[in-house]
Each structure stands twice: as structure tokens, then as C-alpha cells.
């Protein structure tokens, strides 16, 4: 019964985390390029109970299996849903949106992203609400991180920058602003990540990690931005369900508690 208390507590904790996930989705229902998160619950491995110290044979002899006992639940993983967000028109002349190529059966989570240089690391984003950095005229994200060009094979080129000319055309230059040796092969493009589920959310709608595919399949649309793909109705339903599950677990604890109270009052008059 004491074990039951802990099992119910694990239900409380994982629902609490689930509520964190849902409220983060709701808070970002308007964030350009945001991908909604889903929480995956998982039961802890079941424990096999055996009887030892049997009266017949002593410790270890003739173990008898009593049965399996579950031991609660945990929020095992948080998976972004990578479905395409709706495209919205934008006044921003530098706005871009990615439209994923057709999905394939063997690579269901292959998606296209804009490569961005954050610190010294290449990260990936779906937020194409770009602007031009003051002074350098490099194309940057709204967070001010430079957008990397891609080469003809859809690979990010970390040592190149996209410089916006006054007429809106792009020059491909080095970090110091000199013409890039491979400028002719560079473009403002997208890279494909073979399995998007292997990426980690970094914040600022950036994803890190993930294996870059040999070719990109996504298509860029100019003058559009990809809206958040949060489904508010779904979020509301999750929230209600989380709250009720939490309540049920709380009831469970109270029931166990009152039962234990009976046990402690055995023999008391």
C-alpha cells in the first residue's frame, strides 16, 4: 500500500510535467516556425515479485514467483510534431517559408530547415522571418543569428554569409565580407534533416543536432512565414485531461492514506 502511494505520486509528477509541455505549446501558439510538443507517457518497467526466505528451504531455495507489480508512470519523452504549419503572408520583404517535400515511407521524419549559425554551432530553424543585420547587411533571423547559405548539394556552408544588396539581391561572402570562393554554387536554401526526431529543441525556434541529408527536398516560398502548428483545441483537451488525471491520482493518494489510517488505528478504541 505504501508502494501505491509512490505509484500515485509518479502519476502526479508526470502529469505536472505534461502540463508544463501543454502550457508551453499554448504560450507559443503565435510563434513563427514553432513546432508543437507532445508528451509520451510510459509505465515504469514492471517488477517481478518473488518470495524468498521460504519457511521450507531457507534463503534462496525454491523461489516462488508471486507475480508482476507495476511501479508507476513517467513522462518518457517530449516529441515535437513536425507537421507543416500554415503559411501566412508577410509584409517583410525578406520573409521566407519552407514547404516540406513529399514524405517518404522510409524517412517519415525527413524535414527541411534553414541553417543558422548560433555561436559556432550550426542549428536549424523553420522561422524564415528574416531581416538584415545593421552594419554588415548579413541576412539574420529575428534573434540576430546569421543565416547560412547552402551549396548545390543542400549542405550548410558554415564559413559563408548571405549579404543583402540594396536592390534586395544576395551576395555570398565570407565572414569578413570578402567574396566567397564558391559563391557561384551558394544559395539561400534549406537543408534536409534525415530524422527530425533526433534533434533537440534549443529555444528561439532553433533545433540542434540531427543528420543532414545528402539532398534537400524542401521548397522555399518568398513573402510568407510559417505559423506555429499548435492546435489550440487539442491543447485545451490535453489540459483538461491532464488536470483530471492529476485529480484522479490525488484521489488515489487520499484513498490510500485513509486506508492506511485504518491500519494505524487497529486496536485503538
Amino acid at each position, binding site marked *: 500500500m505504501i508502494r501505491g502511494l509512490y505509484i500515485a505520486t509518479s502519476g*502526479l509528477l508526470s*502529469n*505536472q*510535467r505534461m*502540463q*508544463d*509541455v*501543454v*502550457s*508551453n505549446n*499554448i*504560450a*507559443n*501558439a*503565435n*510563434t*513563427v516556425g514553432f513546432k508543437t*510538443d507532445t508528451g509520451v507517457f*510510459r509505465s515504469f518497467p514492471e517488477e517481478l515479485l518473488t518470495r524468498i526466505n521460504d519457511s521450507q528451504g531457507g534463503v534462496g531455495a525454491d523461489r516462488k514467483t508471486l507475480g508482476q507489480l507495476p511501479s508507476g508512470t513517467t*513522462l*518518457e*519523452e*517530449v*516529441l515535437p510534431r513536425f507537421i507543416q504549419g500554415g503559411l501566412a503572408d508577410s*509584409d*517583410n520583404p*525578406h520573409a521566407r517559408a519552407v514547404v516540406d517535400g513529399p514524405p517518404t515511407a522510409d524517412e517519415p521524419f525527413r524535414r527541411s530547415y534553414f541553417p543558422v549559425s548560433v555561436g559556432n554551432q550550426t542549428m536549424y530553424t523553420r*522561422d524564415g522571418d528574416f*531581416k*538584415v*543585420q*545593421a*552594419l554588415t*547587411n548579413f541576412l539574420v533571423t*529575428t*534573434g540576430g543569428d546569421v543565416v547560412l547559405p547552402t551549396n548545390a548539394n543542400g549542405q550548410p556552408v558554415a564559413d559563408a554569409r548571405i549579404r*543583402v544588396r*540594396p*536592390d534586395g539581391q544576395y551576395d555570398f561572402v565570407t565572414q569578413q565580407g570578402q567574396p566567397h570562393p564558391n559563391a557561384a554554387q551558394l544559395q539561400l536554401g534549406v537543408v534536409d534533416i534525415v530524422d527530425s*526526431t*533526433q534533434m*533537440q*529543441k*534549443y*529555444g*528561439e*525556434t532553433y533545433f540542434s*543536432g540531427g543528420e543532414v541529408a545528402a539532398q534537400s527536398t524542401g521548397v522555399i516560398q518568398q513573402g510568407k512565414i510559417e505559423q506555429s502548428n499548435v492546435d*489550440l483545441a487539442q491543447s*485545451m483537451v490535453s*489540459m*483538461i485531461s*491532464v*488536470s483530471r488525471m*492529476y*485529480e484522479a491520482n*490525488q484521489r488515489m*493518494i*487520499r484513498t490510500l*492514506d485513509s486506508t492506511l489510517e485504518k491500519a494505524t488505528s487497529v486496536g485503538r478504541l
Partner: protein
Amino acid sequence: MRSLSTAASGMAAQQTRLDTIGHNLANVNTTGFKAQNVQFKDMLYAQFQQKPLVDDIPGRVSGPGLSIGHGVLVNGIGNSFAQGQLQSTTLPLDFALEGDGFFTVGIFENGVQVGEGFTRAGAFKIGMDGQDAYLVDGQGNPVLDNQRNPINLTGLDIDSLQVDQRGNIQARRGGVLEDVATLSVVRVDNPETNLRPQGVNTFAAVEGIPPNAIRLITALTPAEQPPQVRQYMVEMSNVDMAKSMTDMIVAQRLYSMNARSMQTADQMMGMANNLRNG
């Protein structure tokens, strides 16, 4: 429980958005007004460490680690420099720009010029300085000519004033048509980044931008499509009323959604507090 602060960040963000929409709607009739928009970003994610063991769990899709977000932050408020509609008027000092460009005005503090401002609000007026009449904008800042000097209109017949597409002003003085000045109309590259709002409908250049980012239209090639000056016209606000109203409804609904998630978190904490009694 971080859900409370996550929801609070969402409410704050929607509040900022509502403020901006309100500002835009209030200026739906302001000459030369440029709509503002808010950009959001999700906040850093908390990474919960998980043992590499999770690789072996059947059905698990992602790698080790559990990341849960902290909400949303307002990343910046930008201006949309899209062209507003031109409306014709009957006033000779109403100018509008068709195409990308700005009029230049002098910003004065205590009688000393402290800088230059850029505006598309071309409903100009006559401002008096002693006996001299100058062309000024709605706030009384002198409109500059292409030599960066105020435009002196003393003694001119204002009703006869004409401006051509390139900004050359002509007016009659005692019946004789004379050249007065040429308006300083400039093209600013990437105004979204290179300009910052300064006061009423006027923008100032961001510190340190290269001088060639701001060029007179006379320096532009025809391929760069220099803006044209239109007299007897003003540029209306570029606020899209229908879109603003829709955005307002969305912002309001999202605000209450966030409030709801805060309420849920609160109820859950209440339940935890009442584990023992009640």
C-alpha cells in the same frame, strides 16, 4: 511548477501584441504611419538528463534527454515599411512618396539641430521663424533640401507652389516663377534594420550604419526605381484594419487560453496542497 510562469510569459506576450495592435488601430488615419508588428520566440528549453539506457526502451523515438520549454518571449517589435495608399488633397504643401524613400527633416532641440529624421508623412506646413517662413513637418521640424538646409519660402506665393516627381520645388515670387529648392528625398537600404522610430512618425538612422546606406534619390539609377514625389497627395497609414481586427481577436483568445492554462496549473497545485485534508 513552471507551467505558471510559462502561462504568464504567454499572457505578457499577447498583452504586448494587443498593445501593438491598439497602437496600429489608433493610427489607422495617421498620415504616413507605418504599422508595427511583434515577433515572438520560444524561450530556452530545460534539458532533463536521462540515462543513455533509454536507447534500449522499445518504442522510444528520440535520443536521451527530455526538453521542456519555458514559454515565449517578445523578440522585438518591427515596423512594416509597406507602401500606404495615396489620398488626394487640395493643399499645395501635401506631398506623398510613391516607392521606397523618405523625406528628410531636421531634428532640433532648443534651437540647435541635433540630427536628421526620416519620414513619409508629407503633410507639410509653413512654420515661422521670426519673419522667415520655412517648410516644416507636422511637428514643426524643418523639411530639408538636398543640401541639408531648411527650405525658405519667405515671400513666395504658396498657392503657386509646384513640385515635380524628383522633388524640385518651384513657386512664384511676385508673379515670376522661380526655382526654390529640391526636397531631400532619400532611399534608406533595409529600413527595417537601419532605422529606428524617433518620435511622431519620424525615424532616425541607427548609429554606425555606413553612409552609403542612405542615398539621395538623385544618386539612384533608374533600375533602382527611385521614389516619385506626388503633390496634392498624402500617404495614408499602411495599417490593414481588417487584419488588425482579426489579430486582435486571436490575441484576445490566446490571452484567455494562457490564462486558462495558468488556472489549470493553479488548480493542480491546489490539489497537491489538499492531499491530506479537505
